[in-house]
């Protein structure tokens, strides 16, 4: 018997190695857990990196500059219906054209409507004067869309729509990524340069 005692060591080692291997790797759960853990770590690190980038963007963003940019482009598409601004725009375009005047306006939609549609009545000597008025309106901000033009012997009925879009409701979570700025604000402002910026608010109705 004593002759085989040296075998206890290798047999015990083999037993421990094989039994623990079967216990650890047999069901495959440990391996799955390891891979799942690795995947979680990658996900968490990616999220952390994204949030860091977002934080850096926000830290490097000057709130005052963003506010100014927002104010600037709100001039082109306002956040609310501004009937008086629209009327002022039309009047500013009609008045300088010799022999032309804005004689009336009425809303084409109810006050609760999503659109800001007005029908303006204008007197103007001829179609060339009308074209001058239309060109002037097209160059103004906020943007104005035309829906109808009727001209007959100096009387014009002009259907216009004020372009507007409400501001976003501030419902977002800190973990949401920042939306990309599809174009730099400068380029938007540049592309809108043909639209003259009206100076100051003149809320006076018709003379």
């Amino acid at each position, binding site marked *: 018997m004593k002759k085989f005692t*040296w075998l206890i060591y290798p047999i015990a080692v083999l037993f421990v190695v094989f039994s623990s291997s079967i216990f650890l790797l047999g069901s495959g759960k440990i391996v799955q857990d390891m891979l799942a853990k690795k995947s979680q770590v990658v996900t968490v690190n990616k999220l952390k990196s994204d949030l860091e980038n977002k934080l850096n963007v926000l830290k490097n963003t000057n709130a005052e500059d*963003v506010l100014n940019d927002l104010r600037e482009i709100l001039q082109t598409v306002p956040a609310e219906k501004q009937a008086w601004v629209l009327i002022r725009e039309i009047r500013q375009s009609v008045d300088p054209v010799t022999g032309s005047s804005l004689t009336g306006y009425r809303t084409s939609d109810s006050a609760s409507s999503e659109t800001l549609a007005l029908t303006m009545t204008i007197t103007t000597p001829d179609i*060339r004067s009308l*074209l001058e008025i239309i060109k002037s309106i097209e160059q103004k901000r906020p943007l104005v869309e035309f829906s109808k033009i009727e001209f*007959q012997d100096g009387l014009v009925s002009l259907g216009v729509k004020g372009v507007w879009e409400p501001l976003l409701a501030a419902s977002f979570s800190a973990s949401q990524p920042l939306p990309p700025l*599809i174009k730099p604000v400068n380029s938007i402002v540049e592309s809108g340069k043909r639209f003259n910026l009206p100076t100051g608010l003149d809320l006076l109705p018709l003379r």
Partner: protein
Amino acid sequence: MINLLPREDLLDMRIERIKTYVKTGTTILLAVYLTAVLGIILWWVYLTQNQDQATRQMKEILGQLSNQGNKEALYRNLAHRVSIVDKAVSEHKLVSSRILPLLDTSVGVQITGYSWDDSPRQKLVLKASNPLLLERYIDTLKVSFKKVKLDEFRLYTAPDWTATVIVE
């Protein structure tokens, strides 16, 4: 060479050699196994610590982001508005460019009526002292517009001739 050892001693020597091989092999196996297990444990510990650290840092960043909430709201509104304005500017229709070709060649012809209702169709009421001027004007319209249809052509009040034309 002649081996002078007795037969039993030779057998014992072989057994001892086998014992040495087995013990060495077992020790190497055990060492490799223990190293692998230790490696796995260390990897697990590393992953767990890395995850805990990343999670902790993420919470800190989220806290800092919450403090930047007002700035983020402004930024989101700006990004939203930029896409709206970009779309509005690119889709802004210039109606004047429709009317302009009607005026360029209207020599001797007066456009007394015009109507357009947000469609490709434009209606013109023309007046001229000579029907030939009307005809010539209508012919020039055919250069700028695909479709020119004469709707009405009559002597209105002498000497004025009128024509109603639809262009598309």
